[in-house]
Structures are given as C-alpha cells and as structure tokens.
C-alpha cells in the first residue's frame, strides 16, 4: 500500500466501536405494518424535504438538501474552458460530476480517497443529469457538479440527483427540465419508499426470501422521462415495474417543494420589481 504523505496519518488499522457493542438482549421487533419513523409501507410516503439554493458564495450555483437525516450539499462551477482539449466533440459542452462522502457521513468512517462506491455514484449522477442539461449551448466548455454527502441516511443517490439539478438551475445552466430522484427498498410484497440507511441496508423482514431489492429512479417531471434507473437485489419483473412506478410517484411528490425552493432563490437574487 502506498503511504499517504499528503495527509496527517493515523494508526495503520483501527476499528469502529460499533463492532464491539455487546449484543443487546431483546431483539427489536421487525415492524411489519408501519416503519420505524412512522411512515407507511407501500405508499409514496417520502420524507419531508428541506431544500435551499445559493448557500455557497464562491460557486456559480449551489444547493443544500435535507431529507430526514440525509444531508447533501452541491456546488456548480462553470461553464468554463474544458480541461480535456482532446475531447472529440467540441461542439457540445462537458458535464463533470464528482460525488463524495464526507469521512464522517456514514456509520463507518470513510477514507478521504474516492472509493469505487463514490465513483459509481458519480457516474450514476452524471447519467441522470445528462439528459436534462442543454450542453449544446456551451461549446468548448465544461460544467462541474460537486456533491458532498454530509450525512448518509439512505437514498443518497436519489437526493444527490435532486440537489444537483437544483444547483444547476441556480447556476443558470439551461436545462430541458429539472431532475428529481427517488429511491425505494423492496421488501417482499411491500416496499419502503425513500428508505433510511437502516431500511436500505437492513435485513429483510422475516419469511420473504423473494423480491428483495433497491431501486433508484431519476425523473424529468414535466417531460415525464426517466433519466436514471438503477437497481440491485432480486426482483421479479412485475415487482420491478411496480417499484419503478412507485418511485416515479415519489418523484412527483417532491416536485412542488423543489419548484418552491427554486422560485425562492430566483426571487432573492432579483426581486420581481427589479425586472
């Protein structure tokens, strides 16, 4: 292993105290009906979202989103001259996405070095945003989207997509539509929309070996197009279709909140009387 000389180094190996917690006696019952935070199963019951634009003074556009305990911040820089001059297509702009977990954002401490999960999320973010951005309007240039997860409490990609599209709109990057994200955890016959970290990674409820999986959908709400779709686990085809439909519904639930956040940002930057 190469030694990291650009950071203050700690011990070679350390373990989370959570691994040494004594198993508590009474196992908490797996709630079949409701969910831990009181939301309903198998309904488009998304967590209330708090969204704000324009928090980062240095960025062209920025957004902060909080859904339950999941907290994400995003900045957009550019359009500016592209780094990669060898890129084949100079007529269209480049979108660059960088997703990161803050080291303290997950139950287990993460490394500063971008891991493969972060790379996969960066790519998922990029593919979900690409269909919405009018990149042909920005020849020879690149637009950078940086997302940092400050706290990961489930559905992180879905909210990252929403957050990034808010920041892009705040930056005044031309877009065909906003992009909204919604995630789902399929648990046997029922599903949990916008799952928390525990619901996302938790064990299946008893007695249902089939149809366990996770789905994330990114939606262009007014054009009604799916710009991103990812799933894993094991699902029958009709379950999967149902899950995608539920996610689309979840995205639509989010739309008014995001519209309001954006309108607020527009009004703050230039009060209606000024125009």
């Amino acid at each position, binding site marked *: 292993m190469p030694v990291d000389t650009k950071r203050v180094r700690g011990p070679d190996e350390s373990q989370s105290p959570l*691994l040494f917690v004594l198993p508590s006696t009474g196992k908490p019952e797996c709630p079949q009906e409701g969910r831990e935070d009181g939301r309903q199963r198998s309904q488009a019951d998304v967590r209330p979202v708090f969204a704000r634009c324009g928090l980062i003074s240095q960025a062209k556009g920025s957004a902060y989103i909080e859904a339950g305990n999941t907290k994400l911040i995003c900045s957009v820089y550019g359009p500016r001259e592209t780094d990669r001059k060898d890129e*084949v297509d100079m007529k269209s702009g480049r979108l660059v996405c960088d997703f990161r977990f803050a080291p303290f954002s997950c139950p287990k401490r993460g490394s500063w070095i971008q891991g*493969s*999960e972060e*790379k*996969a999320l960066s*790519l998922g973010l990029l*593919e979900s945003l*690409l*269909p*919405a951005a009018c990149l042909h309007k920005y020849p020879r240039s690149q637009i950078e989207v940086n997302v940092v997860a400050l706290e990961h409490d489930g559905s992180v990609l879905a909210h990252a997509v929403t957050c990034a599209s808010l920041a892009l709109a705040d930056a005044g990057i031309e877009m065909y539509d906003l992009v909204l994200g919604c995630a789902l955890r399929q648990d046997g016959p029922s599903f949990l929309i916008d799952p928390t970290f525990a619901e996302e990674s938790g064990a299946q409820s008893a007695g249902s070996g*089939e149809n*366990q*999986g996770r*789905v994330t959908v990114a939606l*262009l709400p007014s*054009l*009604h*197009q*799916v*710009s*991103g*779709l*990812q*799933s*894993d*686990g*094991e*699902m*029958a*085809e009709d379950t*999967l*279709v149902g899950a*995608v*439909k539920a996610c*689309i519904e979840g995205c639509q639930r989010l739309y008014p909140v995001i519209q309001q956040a954006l309108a607020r940002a527009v009004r703050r930057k230039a009060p209606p009387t000024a125009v």
Partner: protein
Amino acid sequence: MATVQISEAEKVYIVHGVRDDLRVDGRGCEDYRHMEIETDVVSNTDGSARVKLGYSDILVGIKAEIGRPRPMVPDEGFLEFFVDCSANATPEFEGRGGEDLGTEISNTLYKVFNNPHSVDLRALCISPKEHCWILYVDVLLLQCDGNLYDAISVAVKAALFNTRIPRVQISEDDEGTKEIELSDDPYDCMRLSVENVPCIVTLCKVGQRHIVDATLQEKACSKACLLLSVTSRGTVTCVRKIGGGSLDPESIFEMTETGKRVGKALQSPLMELLQKEESLGKKRQKVGFLG
C-alpha cells in the same frame, strides 16, 4: 475500439432497418450474434473462460485465495471483481485510459451479484470470522466490438462453472491454534452451483424500438440503453440505465419485459453448452488462441 462515430446517413439507415426488424448484419431485433465459449483456457487459474461475441473477445480468470471474512458477514466468503480494459483492445485504453470503464464494469458486476442467491457465499466460508475463500474474478478485455456487458456476464458465468476450489481441512492443535490444510488430491475439489448466476442483457433503444446485442455502429445510434441482469428463473438482479439519454416509463417497462424473456432464453443453451463441453473431459481439443 470502445466507441465509433458514424455519419448521419448511416444512422438513418440503421434506424430505419431496426424499425423494420432487419438489422445491418441481417439479425432481428432480439437476436444475438454468434457466440463462442471455451472454458479452462488458462491453466494457472482455478477457473477460466473465454467468450467471443462478434469481435468482442473476453477472457475471465478466477483465482481462489484464502482470506478473512468481512466483519459484517462473518460466515460468508466473497467475490472480488476486477476488469482490465487492456490496451490490446484499443490504444485508448493505454496507461490509465481504460480505468474508468474498468471500474464502471466491475461496479456493475458487484451489483449484479449483490443478492444472496446468485452464488452461495456461505459455501465459501472455511471457518466463521477467521477464514474464507475470496474468489478473485478478473476480467480481461481483449477486443471490444460492442455489447461488452452481455459477453462479460456470460464469460463470468462460464468461468464460475469451470471453477474448482481445493477442499480444505481444519485441524486444531492443543493450544487451539487452527491450521488449514489444502487437499493434495487435485480432483478433490469443490464446485460452485451456477444455476442462479444471472446473465446481463443490454437493450439499446434505437428509434422507437429496442434491440439486443448492439454492435458499435448500432450503439452510436442509440441515446440510452437499459442493462438488465436476469437469472434462469427470470428474476432481475440488476438494472441500470446507461448513456446520456432518457427513456419514457412505458419503454422501460417494454424493455424490461424483453430483457427478461431474452435473458431467460439465453440461460439454458448456455448451461447445456457448458455441460457438454465438460462431459468431453480430457478428450476435448483445447483451442485457446491457437485455433
């Protein structure tokens, strides 16, 4: 060649062809190209396979090594995927040029296998919390001619089928220190059940229709693809939208349906072929790269 650029006229020609269910090479929308599969091609691995699909050429080698189980799942072994997009396939991959594609593919493979049924990971455990088998699944891209994911998934499945893991014996001495002994007999080994190992079907939306096993030219006409990994029972283990375009929900549902059908149909001839090849045993003429 990971991607090609084609002219507008070519695009129109391909899109019109697909509309009439007639592709440039004469295939229908749901037909695969000719596929060649050979297992046991690299002798110093525990399992290997080579798959040729069109000119796409994939070599998979699997090595089993003894390691420590992950703390969260102490009674299971695990799989590690690595995809080497070698410069042999295209000069673009020279140096670190193939790394991004390599991580993208390996991340997808992790998702495809992220479920308890694809591979019996418990069988890979030697002694809980202490020792387990780690299967290093190394994918080597030798040539790219479109539809890498499908070819890679078939090659991985074939290589897993071919994998033989030595049997181990755990002996404990007086002080309680455990020692692992590998069986001396090369035929005394463990096989993996690949019954539930999924295969990937990538569907590309071209015009208003979707096609399987797209060539590079066809891929260039498509704005968005849908990747599905399907088991022999028709269960979907992973879905991913690939590419810079969007899809309307209806076509996603149609593509899922096609994907499931095609993926399911792909499985039994593949298993038959693998079993037939194995039944030849030592009599089989190994072709490798010399054929």
